[in-house]
């Protein structure tokens, strides 16, 4: 669509109309020198078509002031604040949990010592469950918890917590659509 700014002046006007109409806005704002203002007024006195333009020119500023757009959505302010809060997360805070995660992960890997260690852990867990079941039905006494399993449980729990925290930081910083 052609911008209105490019639309031509209506052709139905007589001598002096083009000049008078080109000065109407300046006349309304009181920006014309006195002689030019008088000339435009003299033309208006004898030209009904230009008087219609003048009436419209006079009414435009108050009508422009009166334009009332819709209210913004209530999500605008929370949306801005969420983006700003995310921008406040600096690179150090964003990436430092990665170091903790790597240390914890290395600790878990070291403790399990590969697939053989993992198999041993499963065996031990099964034996613990069996002992607990025996205690439950009254066949044996309550088994002692191996300290190594508690250590592994604590490290794994910590790794999960740190990872969730890190993911929340990344989601806030890089946008919710990322995750």
């Amino acid at each position, binding site marked *: *669509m052609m911008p209105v700014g490019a639309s031509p002046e209506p052709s139905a006007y007589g001598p002096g109309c083009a000049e008078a109409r080109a000065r109407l806005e300046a006349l309304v704002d009181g920006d014309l020198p006195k002689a030019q203002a008088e000339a435009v007024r003299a033309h208006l006195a004898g030209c009904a078509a230009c008087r219609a333009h003048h009436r*419209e020119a006079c009414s435009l500023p108050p009508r422009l*002031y*009166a334009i*009332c757009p*819709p209210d913004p959505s209530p999500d605008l302010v929370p949306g801005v604040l969420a*983006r*700003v809060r995310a921008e406040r997360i600096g690179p150090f805070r964003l990436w430092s949990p990665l170091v903790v995660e790597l240390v914890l992960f290395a600790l878990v890997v070291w403790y399990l010592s590969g697939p053989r260690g993992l198999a041993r852990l499963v065996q031990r867990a099964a034996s613990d469950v069996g002992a607990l079941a025996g205690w439950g039905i009254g066949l044996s006494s309550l088994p002692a918890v191996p300290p190594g399993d508690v250590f592994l449980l604590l490290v794994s729990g910590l790794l999960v917590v740190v990872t969730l925290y890190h993911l929340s930081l990344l989601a806030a910083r890089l946008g919710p659509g990322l995750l």
Partner: protein
Amino acid sequence: MQEERTAGVLRLHPAGVGEPRELARAARGGDLRAFETLVRRYQRRVYGFAYQLLRDPDEAQDLAQEVFVRLYRNLDRFDTERPFEPWFWRLAANVAATYRRRRPAPTVELPRTTPAASPEDVSPLERALADLSRELRLPLLLHYYVGLPLDQVAAALGLGPSAVKSRLHRARAVLRRVLVDEEER
């Protein structure tokens, strides 16, 4: 309603200041509540400005959000010895001028108007305004809709006051011709 909410935030704000310049100074120092107060204070005008420019509520929301985020990023550049509004609207005008639509422009919908104005009176005006070239629409909105004086519009757009006045006259002349044409039909 909006003013009540803003007043509530102002009362809650520890600094108890209402001047945009003071709020900007506090926000620059890391006070997020001062920034929130600033956003609440300007959200209606910024959104309205964006809406008049883009004629699409979702795009306007997006642009308004972008204006405030850019405000936050640029608070360090604000000279607290100078008035806030011209600086802010200059930033808003820059963001608006470089804003890229995410969706194609919609057809013009029926506008909301003030109760005093009849829809027959205002609709053609808003339609004409929507079709105005951006070069003419931006100063018109900053002056008449946002309410900035000419010198502040000039500062916001990086133009001289006479250039702004000339664009305002041209814009109003275009609108006037369209409206007279509509009346004659």
